[in-house]
């Protein structure tokens, strides 16, 4: 196997890694916002439920959650929800979305709760609706406050995608591991590291740019 062959294989796996990463973000960010609203709800059973779910998801390993999502429906109900390569990918996606939504929800909750009461009250006395208050006054202030913790989570997600291999999703490790190990090749492992480093590097630049964009005001 030459450099070219390995590059093609790695890129192939990396495509799945990227897809898993992007889809996880697309679904877990809004879901996280919904869960954070649930946790802050004045309706106690709802907030209790949301906080319990968050506690369970954050308190157990992601790897375990992958197994549970993938195997448990079949073991308990005899239905195989996730079959084939697409099914494995979907199972991984579901597990990642739930897991990350819970982490994000706590970041959102912290951000929203850190906005001083005076901001809400100022909006209220000016006749704004709850919706207007959230979208025109609160949201951008929350975004600014949570950008750093969110970027941390997002970078962790890049690397967590490699956990999907435990249910045989063809991400970058899974497609290549056997090959390299059986042939005793070491350098492709470092090559994989380069993929991750570049990916994380790009994200770091992106978040740095966002932070700069939002630095036009101080709180």
């Amino acid at each position, binding site marked *: 196997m030459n450099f070219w062959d390995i590059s093609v294989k790695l890129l192939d796996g990396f495509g799945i890694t990227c897809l898993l990463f992007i889809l996880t973000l697309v679904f877990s960010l809004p879901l996280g916002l919904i869960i954070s609203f649930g946790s802050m709800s004045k309706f106690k059973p709802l907030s209790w439920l949301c906080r319990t779910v968050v506690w369970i998801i954050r308190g157990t390993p992601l790897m375990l959650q992958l197994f549970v999502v993938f195997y448990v429906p079949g073991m308990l109900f005899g239905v195989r929800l996730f079959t084939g390569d697409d099914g494995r990918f979907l199972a991984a996606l579901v597990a990642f979305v739930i897991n990350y939504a819970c982490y994000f929800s706590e970041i959102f909750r912290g951000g929203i709760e850190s906005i*001083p009461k*005076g*901001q809400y*009250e*100022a*909006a*209220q*006395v*000016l*006749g*704004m*609706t*709850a919706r*207007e208050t959230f979208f*025109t*006054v609160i949201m*951008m*202030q929350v975004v*600014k406050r949570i950008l750093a913790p969110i970027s941390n989570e997002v970078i962790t997600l890049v690397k967590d995608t490699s956990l999907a291999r435990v249910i045989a999703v063809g991400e970058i490790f899974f497609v290549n591991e056997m090959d390299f190990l059986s042939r005793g090749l070491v350098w492709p492992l470092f090559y994989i590291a380069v993929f991750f480093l570049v990916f994380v590097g790009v994200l770091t630049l992106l978040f740095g740019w966002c932070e700069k964009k939002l630095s*036009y*005001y*101080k*709180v």
Partner: protein
Amino acid sequence: MAYLEIRNLKKQFGNTRVLHGIDFSMEKGEVVAVIGSSGGGKTTFLRCLNFLEMANEGTIDFADGFRFDAAKTYKSKEIREMRLKMGLVFQSFNLFPQYTALENVYIPLFLRSKERIKASLPFGKERRAAIKAAGDGDMQRAEALLQEVGLADKMGNYPCQLSGGQQQRVAIARALAQDPAVLCFDEPTSALDPELTGEVLRVISELKNKGRTMLVVTHEMEFARNVADRVIFFADGLIEEEGTPEQIFCSPKSPKTASFLKH
């Protein structure tokens, strides 16, 4: 019939009774200073008038014939409409930090214009044109108001780029934008360095000369004495004494007032 009339206003938090039945009225164009030691319920009183707290008992009659009655329940839309009859300037300014001074005044104003237009016109070209025209008008109004409080050259500044006194003046312009019947101030200069209180108090006096009806909670006795038409002294959730500044400051009747003013 007074311009604003409050009868038997009561408020308690849990078992803590804070307002014990306030009777109070104002005439149009009047400036009333509220003084009293801390914890007396002055802030709670203003918050009830602005419906940030809901009074437990009592009524508030507005000049337009509208009556708020604590015994009734109101929809959130009605509460929002009631809030617009009053304005409130906070001790801590509470400007929106991500918006410029001009946007702070303009955005809340424009949101209400937009809501009114949406309620009266069906979706379509006509509505869009009306919203655009309202936006232009609101922008001009916001600029004029900032000019009025002496900030013509700071319109594009963010709150973090303004001094406390300037921020409070933006907050005053913002509260004035929707032309409230009564503008309330909760210790508008207490968070300011002493050298910055003057510019804010000056703006309030100018507003008085333009005929604004204002209710000002303050610790600035000089201001209360010189600018207010009437002074009310708040103690333990009741209006202990009220009168002209001369009456209150020179010959207080209540021993509580006298003792407060000695300090």
